[in-house]
């Protein structure tokens, strides 16, 4: 276990190092500079030179990289010239709202996808399985924003049940106080996510149903529902933990779209606004945070998995 831990942690550190280098490189080679952005286009070369000296931008690249990492480690993600705020404070404001959207979609998706995948595995190659498979294929093939548009057309424009915009409050509590407005954004992200997770779950359950322990359970006379709840569920859910963790970047991509479509002021919306305004510090800061969250999340999922299933630890890399 210790060897496994050491290997996974050192891999994660290496990955984070590479992410920081990539982000630093992009930041450095982008057109424009912090000095220009802050001092404006009329700044004299002398003023820009003075700014660069004062902030260390005249140093050698490796030194600049170390300074950048040093700032990152101290929680300084940079400063947004477009929003006139530190990236960190923007993050504190908007991250919880995205977490609400993504978290709710993740939980609902799993609650739907796990039973759906198991039912499909039990009724494999039957009508129900084919119907749900068709749903998954179409759900996966739909551009997220088009699905969102259709939901708006049906439930907002035609039926007037839900509003076409996400909650507009500035904080999470404000968002939660307007649950009706959350329905369509969460539903959009959930449908896309269920389409993927149910496939993972079905594949995992089908593979487990062929195992000897299921035959043993059948042989000793357990009822079907007991086999499912006692044996199949646990064994087939465990392997998809990793896949669900690895899907986080994909779901976050979906969240950018959903937030842009429903005008929901979360991280994704901010990111999109920053893209159109060429606000690089925000783009970079968020990229780092999202990548770090993904890497650390996967690491934790792997460790939890290794604790739950000893076979994982002895796998050669």
């Amino acid at each position, binding site marked *: 276990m210790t060897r496994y831990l050491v290997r996974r942690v050192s*891999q994660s550190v*290496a*990955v*984070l190092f*590479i*992410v920081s280098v*990539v982000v630093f490189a*992009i930041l450095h080679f*982008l*057109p424009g500079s912090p000095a220009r952005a802050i001092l404006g286009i009329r700044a004299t070369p002398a003023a820009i030179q003075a700014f660069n000296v004062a902030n260390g931008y005249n140093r050698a690249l490796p030194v600049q990289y170390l300074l950048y990492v040093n700032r990152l480690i101290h929680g300084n993600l940079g400063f947004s010239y477009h929003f006139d705020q530190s990236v960190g404070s923007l993050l504190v404001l908007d991250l919880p709202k995205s977490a609400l959207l993504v978290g709710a979609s993740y939980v609902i998706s799993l609650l739907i996808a796990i039973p759906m995948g198991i039912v499909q595995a039990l009724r494999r190659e039957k009508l129900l399985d084919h119907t749900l498979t068709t749903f*998954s*294929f*179409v759900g*996966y*093939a*739909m*551009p*997220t*924003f*088009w699905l969102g*548009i259709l939901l*708006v*057309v049906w439930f907002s*424009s035609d039926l007037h049940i839900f509003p*076409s915009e996400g909650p507009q409050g500035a904080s999470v509590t404000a968002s939660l106080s307007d649950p009706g407005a959350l329905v369509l954004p969460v539903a959009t992200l959930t449908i896309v996510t269920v*389409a*993927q*997770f149910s*496939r*993972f779950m079905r*594949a995992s359950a*089908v*593979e487990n149903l*062929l195992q000897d322990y299921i035959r043993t359970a059948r042989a000793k006379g357990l009822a079907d529902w007991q086999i499912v709840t006692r044996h199949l569920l646990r064994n087939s859910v465990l392997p998809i933990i*990793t*896949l669900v963790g*690895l*899907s986080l*970047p*994909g779901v*976050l*991509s979906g969240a*950018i*779209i959903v937030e*842009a*479509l429903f005008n929901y002021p979360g991280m994704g919306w901010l*990111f*999109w606004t920053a*893209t159109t305004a*060429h606000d*690089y510090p925000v*783009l970079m800061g968020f*990229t780092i945070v*999202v*990548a770090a969250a*993904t*890497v650390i999340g*996967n690491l934790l999922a792997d460790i939890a998995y290794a604790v739950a299933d000893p*076979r994982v630890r002895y*796998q050669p890399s």
Partner: protein
Amino acid sequence: MTELQPTNPMALGEPALGEPAIGELVVGGRGLRGIIRDFGHNRMGITGLAAIVAMLLFSFVGPLLYPTNQTHPNLLAITRHPSAQYPLGTDAVGYNVLGRLMVAGQSTLEVGLAAAAIATIVGTLWGAVAGYAGGWVDSVMMRIVDALLAIPALLLVLLLTTLVTPSVVMVIFVLGLISWLITARLVRGQVLVLKRLEYVQAAHQLGSRSWQIVARHLVRNVIGTVVVQATFEVANAILLFAALSFLGLGPPPPAANWGGMLNDGLNYVFDGYWWLIYPAGVCIVITVVAFNLIGDAIRNSLEVRLKSR
């Protein structure tokens, strides 16, 4: 246990085979005919193939049979309802929607296919080199893949598109350069198995250079996996392209693509102009499902061949 891969979830049709035994993985030129025959028996695969052929004809031959002006707006005929003159109506600046669907299909399919081609070449070489080299080279190369996988694809695309002016060629390169990661992982995994096989060892003993072994033996033997992944990458590239166009970062008009058409239709959600909202979306769904079906069918026929040994 098989190593779990964050591959396309639509590829998880049937139970995955375990770690292939040594010597089991050879799908060379001889087996190709068998794969095609198996594919021919797969109804879903044939359906997918037929849909792609139909889409290609619609997009590339269609405009020859049904020529429309997709360059100059016609402000005297905007948002017309479908009629005999305009089978799918006209959009906000008077473009014939049916004709525009065809032209938009061209760039959408081009982006999907070309981006997947770039991703496949880069990913195959990267994975083959990493797996064959092993040791620290492998570690460094795969950590780079991990790092790029940790960043949401859309985020990377948005970052890159802020650097370049959007055009079909640029979008192809940007999407190609972020889509090779999964292919690289899959290829590396197979090469790790292949390089222990006797014939690769023999080639090594006979004095073949490393690059010759990678190019002649390893790449050729992972072609099945690569082709399957490539079809999924076409589907993914089309979806990413649509997302990009929705976010306003696709090629600007008069260039047309399906995602961009949907984005234009967004303004008329509350007006009941259904012909601006449904047709382009349906085209995307059909194309993406079709590529997924083809990939699934090829994968199944590959596995049938493995099982029958």
